[in-house]
Every structure is written in C-alpha cells, then in structure tokens.
C-alpha cells in the first residue's frame, strides 16, 4: 500500500515544510533506523536484536538501502531528525558503521538532529571520531546505571568506569548533545543507589536524561526470574519515590522535565521523540522498525532474514499495520501529547481534527478534571504533576472513550505493505 505514493504528495510537497501545500498526510520529517545487532542481549530487553556476527552487515546495509529507497518519496530531505537505534548501532564494525552513516547522509542537513544510540561498552576514541565524521551530532548513551550490582542484574556489558569514559570520549570528539538513559526499578536497587546514578549522570554534564522504569517483560530472562521468584519487582512505593527523585534531581541540575520520562537542558529536547509525541509522521526502516505515514502505522516484522529477503527481491518487507481514523486517531493524538508536560495544544488539535478535544472526549476530560488529574485551560490540556506516575489511569480512559468508532483497522499479521 505504501509502494508508489500518490502523485500529489511528491509534486506538491517538493519543498519540505511548505505550508501552502498542506495535505492531510505530509511527508515524514523524522527517520528511524533500526540496527538489530547487539554484542549480548540484556536481561530485560525484549526489543528485536541478534548477536552480532561478522558477515551480516553487508546484506543488512544492502537491504537497508532498499528499504530507504522505497520510502524516499515519503521522506523530507533533509529530515528534521534521524535516529539510529537498536539493538546497538555502535556494535557495527567501523567500516559498516561508516557505510550506514553515509547511507543516511542525504537526509541530514545542517539543522538535522542526528542521533545514534550507543552502548558505553562499545565506545572508543576512534568510534567517537567516526560518528562525528559521519555527521552525528547527538548520542544517546545507554548507561542505565552507575552501580555495579545493578549493571550485573541488567546484564549490561559495560562497567561504571566505561560509562564515564565513553561519555568523556564522545564529548571530547565533539558531540555537543549527549543524552544518558538511566533505569530505575531494577531488583535490588535502592533510593540511595538511584540518587547516586542520577548524580553521576548530571555531574558528567549530560544535556538530556531519559529515566525509564524497568518493565519486567515476560519473555526476558528477568521476567522469567521474577515469575520463578528468584528476583522481585521493585515495590510500587519505591518506584514512585525513584520517579519523584529523578524529577527533583534533574530540576536541580538544570534539566527541565518535558515528558513523563525525559529531561533536558534548554534547546536540548529530543526533536526525534517529539515527533512521536506530536503524532506526526515518521518513517522507520530496518527489521522491527515502526513507521507512521499517510495515516497508516506499520511495524516491520522483527526478522532480519525475512526483511532482507523481501527487500532484495524488490518487495515490501513483511509488516503488520493498521490505519487509524476518526476518534481512535484523536485518542492516540491525545494519548501521546499528554506525555508532554506542556500537554496537548487544543488549538492545534482543533485545526487538525475540526473539533475541540473537550467535545470529543467529554466524559474522560470532565471526570479527570474533577479528580484533579487533568489541568484544562482554554489553550491546553495537560496532566497535573502529581498524576504523571499514574498517567495510565487517565490515558486508558481516553483511549477507551476514543474506541467507540473509527477503531484502527488491523491489516493482518504479516501482510505486504
């Protein structure tokens, strides 16, 4: 369905961002690239990744080039953001990484936020230099913790010292925008050790901080350990304390919270992730990557071989997809926007959908306004600060109220796009 875009997009939107050529489905200005290789799978991770093994990169890059080419008509040049995630992109050998960055170069302009996710255990001076050389201006460093015992539980391949060293190498190489991912909720973690990790991250001078609560996914080693009773999920009250500590600590360090789990110095918010939260289109390439274009969401099947085989044969890779319309689409827009501390821009919503959000979801909004979990002003609807950590209670109501009609039509388990 995505093959061969309707002509009008290609001709009308020759100039990216040209307001006059406003169409319902503009070109994507964000590109996500999934690199499915890891040196070792972390014990909590259920993202798609494979043990890196030599010889896979060539076919991967070839297929990636084909995947990009398929979406070329739907992508702005340059993009506002390019994000290379995984997996562990930096586990690629130098040549392959160089090849990957070169492949993406056409979508990178002077103002593009070009992010690569990196595992601290893979960073060397040479690799840092190669990233900068390839145009990368933002690195998201998956530190997760600075405490040795937590790193061991999480199955991370790096040490605290390596994390510090990686950060300094990247900074030294000229990466101006450095983000650190930290994780709380790790079995055995204490509020003190969490505060310790926060302190180290900000002391290093991180420009951006993502603090995620560990989710014990069933199909992971940690999930299994938990079911078997070998480890225990962190107590809810402590999770909440960790969350509150992160907000307080980040604020004190000059990193302002702008999303439920994200904090940034001024002008250092993640442009790429904002695309998701504003529910704007993006293209995802690579096995397991998700995209959203022309009102259709898709997720490539998380299988390197199947993905590469299809592309090399000139076909679309296998994917599951859905097309959202009407209230379901509006609910999703609200669900995403409410993750932002600024919340939803009511006027932008009204421009996009033709009605005010409070009229579309009268029950949920009135109810949560009464409870105090939603702050409703003429211009915006946002979550109240004390309810960030219980946001699902609000979001699930909105999604349910939106499910009345225009429900997403799933286009099958593994259909061709």
């Amino acid at each position, binding site marked *: 369905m995505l093959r061969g875009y309707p002509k009008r997009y290609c001709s009308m939107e020759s100039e990216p961002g040209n307001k006059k050529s406003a169409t319902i489905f503009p070109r994507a200005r964000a590109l*996500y690239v999934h690199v499915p290789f890891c040196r070792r799978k972390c014990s909590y991770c259920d*993202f798609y990744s494979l043990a890196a093994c030599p010889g896979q990169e060539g076919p991967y890059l070839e297929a990636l080039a084909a995947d990009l080419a398929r979406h070329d008509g739907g992508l702005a040049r340059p993009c506002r953001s390019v994000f290379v*995630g995984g997996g562990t992109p930096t586990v690629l050998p130098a040549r392959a990484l160089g090849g990957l960055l070169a492949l993406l170069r056409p979508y990178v302009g002077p103002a593009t936020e070009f992010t690569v996710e990196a595992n601290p255990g893979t960073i060397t001076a040479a690799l840092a230099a190669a990233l900068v050389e390839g145009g990368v201006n933002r690195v998201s460093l998956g530190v997760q913790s600075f405490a040795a015992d937590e790193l061991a539980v999480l199955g991370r391949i790096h040490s605290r010292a390596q994390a510090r060293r990686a950060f300094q190498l990247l900074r030294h190489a000229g990466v101006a925008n450095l983000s650190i991912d930290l994780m709380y909720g790790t079995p055995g973690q204490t509020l003190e050790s969490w505060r310790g990790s926060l302190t180290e991250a900000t002391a290093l001078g991180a420009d951006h901080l*993502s*603090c*995620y*609560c*560990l*989710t014990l996914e069933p199909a992971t080693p940690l999930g299994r350990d938990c079911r078997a009773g070998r480890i225990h999920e962190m107590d*809810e*009250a402590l*999770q*909440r304390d960790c*969350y509150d500590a992160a907000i307080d600590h980040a604020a004190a360090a000059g990193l302002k919270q702008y999303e*439920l*789990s994200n904090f940034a110095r001024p002008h250092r918010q993640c442009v790429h*992730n904002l695309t*998701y939260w504003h*529910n704007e289109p*993006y293209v*995802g390439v690579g096995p397991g*990557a*998700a*995209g*959203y274009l022309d009102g259709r*969401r898709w*997720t490539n099947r998380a299988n390197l071989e199947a993905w590469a085989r299809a592309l090399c044969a000139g076909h679309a890779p296998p994917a599951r997809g*859905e097309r959202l319309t009407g209230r379901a689409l509006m*609910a*999703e827009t609200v*669900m*995403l926007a409410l993750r932002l501390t600024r919340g939803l821009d009511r006027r932008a919503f009204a421009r996009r959908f033709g009605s005010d959000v409070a009229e579309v979801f009268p029950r949920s909004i009135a*109810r*949560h306004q*009464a*409870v*105090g*979990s939603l702050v409703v002003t003429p211009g915006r609807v946002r979550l109240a600060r004390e*309810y*960030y*950590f*219980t*946001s*699902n*209670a*609000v*979001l*699930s*109501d909105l*999604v*349910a109220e939106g*499910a009345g009609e225009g429900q*997403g039509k799933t286009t099958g388990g593994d259909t061709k796009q």
Partner: protein
Amino acid sequence: MDQKYIRNFSIIAHIDHGKSTLADRVLLLTGAISTRDFRDQVLDSMDLERERGITIKASAVSVDYELDGVKYLLNLIDTPGHVDFHYEVSRALKACEGALLVVDAGQGVEAQTVANAHLAKANGLTLVPIVNKIDLPAARPEDTAMEIEKLIHRPAEDCIFASAKTGQGIQEMMRAIVEQLPPPAGDPTAPTRALIFDSTYDDYRGVIVYIRVVDGKISVGDKIRTMGTGDVYNVGELGKFRPAATHVSVLTAGEVGYLVANIRSIAAVHVGDTITHAAAPATEALAGYRPPQQMVFCDFYPGPETQFPELRDALSKLQLNDAALTFVPISSEALGFGFRCGFLGMLHMEIVQERLEREHGVDVVQTAPTVPYQVQLRDQSVHEVDSAGDLPDPSHIEEIREPVVRVDLIVPSDAIGAVMQLAEDRRATYKSTEYLSADRVILAYTFPLAEIIYDFYDKLKSCTRGYGTMDYELLGFFPDDLVKLDILVNSQRVDALAVICHRTKADARGRKIIGRLRKEIDRHLFEIPLQAAIGGKIIARESIKPMRTNVLAKCYGGDVTRKRKLLEKQKAGKRRMKMVGNVEIPQKAFMAILEVDDD
C-alpha cells in the same frame, strides 16, 4: 384412540442420573428415531441446557409401541430437572398416570429424587423404579434398590436394573410401562378440560401450548377458553411430537399433544391452567393452578457496551419463550436505567443472564439477587418489595415478612454435624432426620429463602464432599427482625448495593461486604472511603488507598500501536464496570456482596 391403549408417563431423575439417555433409548427402541439420528439428549433443544446437563423446558413425545401383538401409544412427558422449576415439574407430573423413577446405581437416591418421588406420589402416579447405569464399575445396584425401597415403600425386588447406555433392561422397562402403569381415566363425553403443562414460542406460529386432554376432546377450529386467565382463542392447529411435529385433527381424553391458536405472547399462557370449550365450558377447572411465582429478583443494567433499548429488546425476546421471566423498567441513582427482573430461582437467573449475553450479545451489570419481601405498614397495608432500595421509611414499617422454604437435604451421615452447623449459620429451623440407609440421611429444615439463594448449595457441596443434595419448596411469608443495610462508596449511597438482612447479622454482614468491595474495586487516583450503615448510623468503615503507580515509563521507540494496545488492554479488563460518581465499580462487586462467607 381408545384410552386403554394409551400410557402417559414421565421420567423422574436427579441431574446426570441418565434421564435423557433413557428417553433417547425409548425413542430408538420404538423407531421414533433411527440409530443414524440417534444423538444425545434429543429432548433438550437449547445448547445451554446441553452444556449444563439439565433440561429447562418440558416437552412431550408420542411413540408407538407394540407388545404381544397389541399396539400402544406412549406419551413421554419430559420434566424440568431443577429445583427452581418445582411447580412446572408438578404440572408435568399432573399430566401423567405414571413415572419412571430413575436412580443412578453409582450415586444412589438424591434430594431431587426424593422431592420428585414425593410429588409424584402426591399426584397419585404409579412409579416404576429403575436402577440405571448398572454397567458402571462403581455401580451398587442392590444398595441403590434398598434406598429406593426406603423411599417409596416398595420391595427392592420391584426395581428394574438397567443401563440406558448399553440398552440392558430396556425391554423389561418397556413392558413395565405398559403393564404396570394405568391407562388414563377421564370422561371423553364430559365437557372438555385440558391441562396446560408447558409452552414454547415459535417465531412463525406464536405460542405452542403443550396440553393433556383430561375430559372431552379438542378439535381444530374449536373456540376455547383458558379458565385461569379467561382468554378465548380459536384452535388453528393440533398435533403430536413423534418427535417431529405431526398434525392431528382432534385430541381426545387421555391424549397428549400441542395446540396452536395464534397466541402472540407466552406470558398469556400459564402452566397449570385449564383449557375448556368457550361454548360449553366445564364448571370446574383442574385443581392446582397458580400463576408463575418469581422467588428471586435482581436488576440488570446495560453494561458499558450496551444501550438501554438493546437490553429491553433482548429481554422481550427472551420472555417470548420464558413465561416465568418478568421484568419492569427501573432507575437507580448509581446505575442509571435498567430492569428489575424476576426469576423462579437462582439457576433460572443465571440462565437468563447467559442467554442475554450469548444469544443477544448484550452486556449487563447485574446486582445481587434478592428475595421478595412483604412489608406491612402501620396503616396495615401490605406491600411487596423486591429490592432493598424500595423499602419504605423504617418509621412507617410495622413488620417485614420474608419467604420461608422447606428444605430437604440428603447428606452422608458423617457430614450431619457440618451440615447442621451450616444450617444454624443460615437461620434455619430443624424439623426432622430420617435415615435412608446406614450412611445416608434426609435432614428436613425450614430456611429463610434469602439464606439459601446464593451460595448455600456450594457450601453444602463442600461440607459433604460433593455428596449432599437439596430440594426446596415454598411454605409462605413469615415476619422477622429485618433491616436495610446501606453501602456508601466515596460517601455516595449505592442503592444497588443495599441489602435487607437480619438485624443480628447486620454488623458482620456490613464488614464483610465492605471487605469484599475493597478487594473488588481497583485503586483509583484518589482515596475511596467505603461505609456500611443502618439508617444514619455507620456500622463499618474502610478505605481504598489511592494508586501510587500506573505508568508506561518505558520507551517503545516509535511503536505507538504497542503503547496504545497496552492501554487498551488495561481498559479491556474493566469492561464490566459501572461508574458511580467518579468510582469504577466492577460488575463482580454487585454480585460479590452476597458472598459474605469468604475468608
């Protein structure tokens, strides 16, 4: 047909003692169905019944049988198999001269066997005792025959040992039906009287009425009158089920069949009523008629996925073939618009709820079942109240009367202590003990009906290792010290959660209900106080602490669909919720308030 060649009979058996298979055997042996057509439970037409192994609606099948060169017409009248349908069973038996008393050789006599055997004897029926399932390894045919001897005071040797499954003893049984059961009496020349013993609804023909002609005859084209309800109809069609419907032009005294008379509502036809000729009516109706009596009530409200009119339409459709179901529209502050529904008993209620969901796709929130109460006011007027919410102001009430039932329990003798304790906890009054055998005993009690409608049967099963069985019969309404117990959720009185209970039990009951609610209601974004009160006095209090965490903190990259699905999943579990103020109360909570004996 000459009456002396007719035999009308029923099969009396406890659930699962093999009634349906035995009936199928009769059909097979008489050629009414072929082996190829042979399938289990021909007489039970609804899927639901088959799944539950019970028969809800009676029906009648006529078969030809030749014995020693003489042709007979056998009418097998099926009886509902559950305690809720006591009255319907009694009417079906009234249409017979005899019954096969079937007892599972592995299980022995059970409470329902006892109740129905007594009912049959009270109606003057001749019984043919049959010990069934003798092919089972666990069968104790002789012991079972001894129990039957105790029960019906006939020598154990009279029992026929049979297996409906293998066919053993079936010929002997057929001979006994012809030789032991009397042919129908009744006067073919007297003014017509026919007993209505069941009815079903057909979309094209309207109500199909099952009748047993007692005196006189009915012909197609006759103008008839129902003596209880006083309605007049023209007979459009008469027939018999063999088992396929077969038209006849006349049904005479002693015969069993069906009648179609363009009757559009099943509620217009009452089981137990007498049909006579409009022009030459009988002077006296057949004895024993009474209108359907609902003994259990609950409210159905449309669930989140259902609109009020959908629920109304679904109930109307169900009522078309369920004369015992009643419903009236009501409105509750907490739950909005819904229906107060009346049922013969708990099983009947469960069946209706399941049929609403399965056959009509509606989603209902159901309140806890209650019994009807008679409230006598100080001005001496008496009002029937079937919901705690409808109770008048206590200052006007002189007394509240509740339905009391006689209950027969058959239990292993080593469980007598436990059963007596259970009965005592339920405000029962002991009547008698009767030994059925050395290790099985019949305990007779009177119970307030309210004490046994919900989980009593389960409790009985658990304290008798599954062997206990029960049957009940209404005795009447009797006064007791009953009060209304209110439940407040987040300071709001939830009328659908209110219950009427005995004053001495109110404290414990209130605490337990609140304890259950605390478990059933999820944490919210705010603290939720729960209170139980009698009038203005709070007798129990608890609170549900606000939730501390419920967040998708993890980043799923651009996989927004996954994120949304997770939220949808969270909500999907809450489908059966009802909003009361800002509190989501799960449907289970409305039922749970009766399950007060949990931990």
